[in-house]
């Protein structure tokens, strides 16, 4: 089957996404980092999660490069703007 992702790997992706979600919650709940750093780390984790959805759920991993770069560019610009936004307006 062309470009099919194994079922076991999809379970791994799901588990990673759930653990990343819970991990972010733990970081915020215990104030593990200072305000600006916390925002940056939490948004980076969110960006990694979104990219995993892009590549393994939406199968962009197997899409033409132009599509991959377009979606990655959206994610990069948004993540950077959000991190900067929370950084310059301290939590």
């Amino acid at each position, binding site marked *: 089957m062309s470009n099919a992702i194994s079922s076991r790997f999809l379970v791994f992706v799901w588990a990673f996404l759930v653990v990343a979600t819970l991990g972010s919650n733990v970081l915020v709940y215990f104030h593990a980092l200072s305000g600006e750093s916390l925002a940056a780390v939490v948004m980076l984790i969110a960006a990694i999660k*979104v990219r995993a959805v892009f590549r393994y759920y939406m*199968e962009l991993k197997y899409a033409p490069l132009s599509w991959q770069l377009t*979606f990655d560019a959206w994610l990069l610009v948004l993540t950077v703007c959000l991190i900067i*936004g929370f950084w310059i307006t301290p939590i």
Partner: protein
Amino acid sequence: MLAAIANAFSEKRTKTARIPGDSGVFLFVLADMSMFGLFFLSFIYERSKNVPLFNESRLALDVNLGAINTIILLTASWFVVVAVQAAKRGKLNYVAPFLFLGFVCGAVFGGIKIYEYADKIQSGISMMSNDFFMFYFILTGIHFIHVIAGMVILAVLWHNARHKRYHGENCKGLESGATYWHMVDLLWIIIFPVLYMLG
């Protein structure tokens, strides 16, 4: 499990690069994501004008419910991916059940969102309370509408799957619907930290 992970990271492209489903749907998804992107940037800009108000208002939101909703949508997406993979592999009996599970997850998400809205309104909080809550209700409300639309799509896909209409080379409709659902999921992945967790 470790072998599967290693294989997935090292696997080469075996066939021609392709967009799953209809490329027009991907274009629509990109446009929709861009609209939400503007909403997020607008939120950050408005927040910069009154950080204490936004920080204090954010505390009224239930982070735990937000996290639960995130996990629910992630699970729904996984169910939908499994349904698509099952159709491609000819395991047609699995397609409809997993689409149904995805639908149920969407319904649970909706139920929790309605509970949250009711709780806010009973506490005297509405879209008109302040700028933070305007963004909260508008952002999550528009997302909620997308979830409902996604559930309608899943219901249609489920109906077609029950009649074994998706298989092997005939998966475009299923893939397109799944793509829309994954967009709904990934938007919430960003909405949750921006509104509930930070600030």
